[in-house]
């Protein structure tokens, strides 16, 4: 399972990277960061990029820092960076809790947060995080820079709003308020496998009732998204069995699950409800 031939570029700066992309995009030029998702599909020859633009040498893309009220995650920041909280407060803890579910240890030493977002596998944990927290994706090309909101970014199975000549240079996540509660739950056949369903929830408590709920479901539909019906079912209610079951039921009713020969839509729908409820129970614990 050897990849098809490609030309290899190793830019040293962001500008060089996007210039190169501009030149090679038309010949199916792709960005190589961690390679943990791209190289396998090249091995199967499902992808045959004519060019690889290896950004691992661009020091500026390794940046991981707090900019005001945002955490900026550069394109070359590895999954492993998040094992220990990268910022004080709930966001750091949330990312550390989620990262443990991503594949396996050796994948996490190379794979990147942004790479996962750009690859947009429906079962990607970071995509679910990006959707849940309304992340901002920063895309740069030879002709300029733009910011894409999460809800506009994910367009379908392995499909994003990125143009072929654009490089996702960073993803910006909101620093969550210190009293934010969160829960994450995913179900898979074996530890480290692609999840069949996952839910990420966050909320705050105001006078004992839920405020600012976020409920995002991943692995169930072609792309992850916040489920407003579930959030409405939670807002203003006391956390507990009744509210959580209502939210889970709302998720079950709202999703249009993927259906394939191995996993049926109705089973995924069942799972979507279960993972939602369990994520909420975790948040409340």
């Amino acid at each position: 399972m050897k990849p098809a031939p490609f030309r290899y570029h190793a830019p040293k700066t962001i500008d060089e990277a996007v210039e190169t992309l501009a030149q090679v995009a038309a010949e199916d030029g792709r960005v190589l960061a961690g390679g943990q998702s791209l190289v396998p599909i090249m091995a199967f020859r499902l992808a045959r990029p004519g060019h690889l633009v290896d950004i691992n040498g661009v020091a500026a893309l390794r940046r991981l820092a707090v900019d005001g009220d945002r955490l900026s995650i550069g394109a070359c920041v590895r999954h492993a960076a998040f094992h220990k909280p990268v910022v004080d407060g709930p966001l750091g803890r949330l990312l550390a809790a989620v990262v443990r579910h991503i594949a396996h240890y050796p994948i996490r030493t190379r794979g990147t947060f942004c790479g996962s977002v750009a690859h947009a596998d429906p079962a990607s944990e970071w995509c679910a995080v990006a959707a849940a927290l309304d992340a901002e994706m920063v895309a740069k090309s030879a002709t300029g820079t733009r910011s894409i909101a999460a809800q506009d970014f994910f367009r379908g199975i392995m499909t994003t709003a990125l143009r072929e000549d654009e490089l996702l240079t960073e993803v910006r996540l909101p620093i969550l308020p210190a009293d934010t509660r969160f829960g994450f739950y995913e179900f898979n056949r074996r530890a480290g496998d692609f999840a069949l369903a996952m839910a990420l929830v966050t909320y705050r408590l105001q006078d004992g009732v839920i405020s600012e709920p976020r409920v995002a479901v991943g692995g169930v539909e072609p792309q992850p998204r916040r489920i407003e019906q579930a959030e409405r079912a939670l807002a203003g209610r006391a956390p507990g069995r009744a509210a959580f079951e209502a939210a889970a039921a709302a998720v079950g009713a709202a999703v249009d699950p993927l259906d394939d020969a191995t996993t049926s839509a109705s089973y995924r729908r069942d799972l979507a409800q279960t993972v939602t409820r369990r994520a909420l129970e975790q948040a409340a614990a």
Partner: protein
Amino acid sequence: MTSGNNKWIGQSVERLEDPPLVRGRGRFAADISFPHQLHMRIVRANHAHGRIAAIDTAAARALPGVVAVWSSADIADIPPVDFREGRIPALEPYRQPVLAADKVRYVGEPVAAIFAEDPYIAEDAADLVTLEIEELPILLDAEAEPGEFSAGRNTEVAVIQQGYGDVEAALRAAPMVVELELGIGRHSGVPLEARGAIGRYDASRDILELHGAAKVPHRNRDLLARMLKLTPSSIHVHESHVGGGFGIRGELYPEDVLVCVAAMRLGRPVKWIEDRREHLIAANHSRQQLHRIRAAVDGEGRILAIDDRYFHDQGAYVRTHAARVVHMTAGILPGPYRVPAYRAIGHFRLTNKTPAATYRAPGRYETTFVRERLVDAIAAKLGIDPNDVRRRNAIAPDEMPYHRPLEALGEEIEFDSGDYVGLLDKLLVALDWDKLKAGLARRRAAGEAVGAGFAMFVEKSGLGPADGVRIEVDTSGAVELITGGASLGQGFETVMAQVCAEILGIDYRRVRVTHGQTDRIAFGIGAHASRATVMTASATYNGAMKLRAKAIDMAAELMQAPIAALDIVEGKVVRKDQPLGPSISLGEIATHLAPTSKTLGEREPGLSAEGWFRVDHQVYPYGLHFAVVKVDRETGGVHVESYAIAYDIGRAINPALVKGQIVGGFAQGLGGALLEEFTYNERGDPLATTFADYLMPTARETPKVDVILREDYTSPLNPLGIKGAGESGITGVGAAIASAVDEAIGIPGAVTQLPVTPQRLKQILNGRAN
């Protein structure tokens, strides 16, 4: 014979195989390279069934670095891959051609072969070959009406029947009839090393070499000789390191034939290394059967008759094993129970899937699932404990040897020895069963979906009819034990060395064990069917005894001592009453036995001996499996909390290695019970073509196994009393886990299909809820 405790036999000594392997100095097929070698890449069918209208190889040929591209026309003189045991005319029309000629019958079937300077280029060239296929109807269900295989031939290859007694009468008269429909999913051994073969023709000696062989090197040599019309002695098959076999590796496949033919015709060594996707669609599949079983039972759960009709999904062709698995299934199903009347009818059917053959405990994993589900069903219907059903039906020790007029592997079944109920009792004691059972009931009352299940089975091992070794001691005292055996990673060398060293009175580390080299010994049956320890170790024992006698005879003359007064200790012959006195080493004895030696006398030159072991009966070790599972009712997920295996091995030469085999087999059985399945869409496209789809257990999913190894009943059929163990860890896993899941969810007979996937289990639970 050394008196007192055995020094090596029965000891869990460290393996001789390990030092090179932990250093990364193993020599697996992909590690073998020859100068000027070509790399072969197979072009495989992408359609499950169709007529080949055209194959266009022009673009592939034109690619720089490509030396040749073959399709079936280029090897028209090469016959289809034949059967291992010899000619079986009735099955011959269903053999697989080395390269597809007029039709393709499964996705993955070899259609063309590329020979190139480099494997990357070979794969590029394979992409450039275009196939024009006229699609034909696709058959994916062995139970459906047979379709057309070829003109005038349909896809039901044969109908197997075995039985005795009047089943119909028993069913008519029975107080109770239990009826089940049970399926085992398609899965297979999937070793971590994919297949590989290197063909090399040494023109200077007119010898064809096949490297990367495994399991049955001599058989494969003979089969190749027949197919290629060469003399067996002009083919040398070489086995080096093998990354697991499990029954899958080592059969002769089309690719093995191709590297040999290509090496001869292209005049360069030809190396073929399979990739993982290829392995999952082209190496032997196994296990898929559907059984419709009925049992006549009396009011106390005694089986009066079994009537089983089953459908064996063979895939697209009949491969080297012919009808071995489908036939054995009928013979082995009754297992450890008395079945007064029996009929098994097996439909040996072809489908448009990867061909199937043997996988560890072939026929036994499947039939143990079926038979033990039956035991559970009888127990549920009568409201009694399944183990009471087992007690009432199990053959007793005083009925041994127990003859059954059924056949498996060419022999009538005769259980040699054993106490099945006795082993069950020992297992229950080891589990502290009453306490465990009460504990699970308490947990269920508190709302947990937990349950336990058992499975009882008889295994088979020690398939003869004969094996032989040659042992040679050189003038330094180093010993070489040359066998026709094979090593797949199970510790074969260590076990043979232990036996040899015990008899010769030397350190086992001084024994070099040679295997898998057909040019070093003329005959061998390799390693499969849990036979190596029984057959090759017994031959080693016999050979070592002869060599020992030779050494002592020479020493007796040199030391002027009676033979009976001598012993061999640490490689030196000494007087038993003066162990620290005068001695003569084996190396010195070898020198005295040299052809030119003055002390040789009338003796045969050389300190060497051949040893043979013949047996006309397999041995039948037996065991029990026990599982505790916890079910997540919301997701359908199954977690195996604990597992125990009780097994009577007769005698364990190296207990650690036996346990290793059992635990390894268990992990595979676990995969078959919960995770592994080769599935297809309606177009016959295989869906499990990567390790992300074909799921095998990791350290996370595999619980510790409590192995209770017993040596209660040594086999009367060989000098060391051993029975094999290679397959016992896997046999009962499907059955035990199914039983435990039923109890956990409180639905008797819920599990009728393996693997128990979360989705399937959730469907069962939802169905019950509605």
